[in-house]
């Protein structure tokens, strides 16, 4: 499989504080890759570097093309949907308007309509609440909205920042089932940041564990799950 996204020795940080100290990783086209690690390890900063939300050095390539000096808007338009920490819901707008912002750049009207049907199939609750303000949604529903909106962008790559955060286990399970389905039936590549290592490794084929801004462990998800010492020291279960 060819790599859709490659990071090579990426250093990044905020002002004087550097957070990433040479992160290299590769996300194969069509795959699901987990990015694990403790709080403050640099998971969110890695995603922010990819979509240009933080200054970085080294190289990041998407589909073979360097993202250096590209604006966030252009990176997104090139096919990367980033569901950020806190989900990025526009709470002043309605559910429907949030979804429209996902599809607003697409010109394939027929396909868009089909994708809306898919989305409402995945998340019937969003259809019921279309006209309501997004601020009235519960945490789980906001996560569904963020995921639905990202799907409507028809991305090649989805960056998901802790989709399980703050949600009840049963909702987490159903959301991860839908991520799996989006990956498998729509061929969307996924880079998944998670604290919940167990559920992330179940979904992904490959995983990286970050520790203080460096890749500490990498390997096939199954391999990492089976490795007792990795599990104990890095994954905490």
């Amino acid at each position, binding site marked *: 499989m060819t790599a859709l996204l490659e990071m090579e020795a990426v250093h990044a940080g905020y002002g004087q504080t550097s957070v990433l100290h040479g992160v290299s990783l590769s996300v194969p086209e069509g795959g699901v890759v987990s990015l694990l690690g403790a709080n403050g390890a640099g998971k969110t900063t890695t995603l922010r570097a990819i*979509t240009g*939300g933080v200054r970085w050095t080294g190289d990041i390539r998407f589909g073979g093309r360097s993202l250096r000096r590209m*604006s*966030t*808007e252009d990176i*997104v*338009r090139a096919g990367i*949907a*980033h569901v*950020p920490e806190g989900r*990025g*819901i*526009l709470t*002043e*707008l309605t559910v429907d*308007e949030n979804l*429209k*912002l*996902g599809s*607003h*750049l697409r010109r394939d009207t027929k396909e868009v309509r089909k994708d809306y049907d898919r989305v409402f199939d995945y998340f019937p609750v969003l259809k019921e609440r279309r006209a309501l303000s997004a601020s009235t949604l519960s945490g789980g529903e906001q996560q569904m909205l963020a995921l639905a*909106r990202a799907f409507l*962008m028809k991305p090649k790559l989805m960056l998901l920042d802790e989709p399980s955060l703050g949600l009840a286990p049963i909702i987490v399970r159903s959301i991860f089932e839908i991520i799996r389905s989006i990956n498998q039936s729509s061929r969307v590549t996924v880079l998944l940041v998670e604290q919940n290592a167990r559920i992330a490794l179940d979904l992904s084929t490959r995983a990286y564990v970050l520790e203080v801004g460096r890749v500490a462990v990498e390997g096939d998800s199954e391999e990492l799950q089976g490795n007792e010492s990795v599990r104990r020291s890095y994954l905490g279960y």
Partner: protein
Amino acid sequence: MQAFLQQVISGIAIGGVFASLALALVLIYNAMGLVNFAQGEMAMLATFAAYALINRGMSYWIALPVTLVLAFGGGIVIQRVVIRPAEKAPILALVIITLGLATLLNGLAGFIFGYVPRSFPSAFSAQTVDLLGVFISYRDLGVIGVSGLVLLAVYLLLQRTTVGLTLRAAAHHPEASRLLGVQVSWMLALGWGLASAVGAVSGIMVAPILLLEPNMMQSIIIYAFAAAVLGGIESPLGAVLGGLIVGVTVNLAGAYLPFVGGDLQLAVGLAIIIVVLIIRPNGLFGRAAARRV
């Protein structure tokens, strides 16, 4: 009763003028949390542009849309050239920039056109029509009609079009909007262009009443501030209703309170600002400023 209703109607007409300028203020406040003190002078300069076009023989109804397009472009240029370089500066620096811009535009208009007040044509006659015993001038009806149309157009643009949706998104959540591919910086420029065009309408509507000169908008901007604050500085609908309320209030106060007369009307506008800020700082339609800690 008829005299009272006549005062109310002309209050609504002048209120439409305040509403347009207040809406312009709200558009920019929403986009960047900035009160644009140059909004009135931008409208004044646009009105001079209309004056120049009409003086060169262009008909009023062609000069009006042409001026709005010019004002729209001018607003974009101002945002790109003057505001954008200071985008990351503290908000106070931006406020000072708009104050400087106001002085600059005022001086520019004086330099080009001089300070002698000029009469500005109105598309509507000053004659009155008898509506069930209430005499209303065509001019008032025209101002109400044109302001109403402009406000409706802005509403439809913001609420019913994709551009309007991305404009609102960029204004409320610039970071999240960037991640959805919205070109936030251009949306800000578009907001300035839109505000400039909407503000220009207020200048063109009020010029036949006040006579056109570089300081023409300096009282109107006070009323517009009152309208925007009354409506809750973030709410476009609030700005429009605030404009109408301020217009009617000021007009009635001038007509029925002998000590106000024509001289103290501006003081009524200022009093509205102060009273609203003391009693209900978020205005009629503003949301309480809440911050998650």
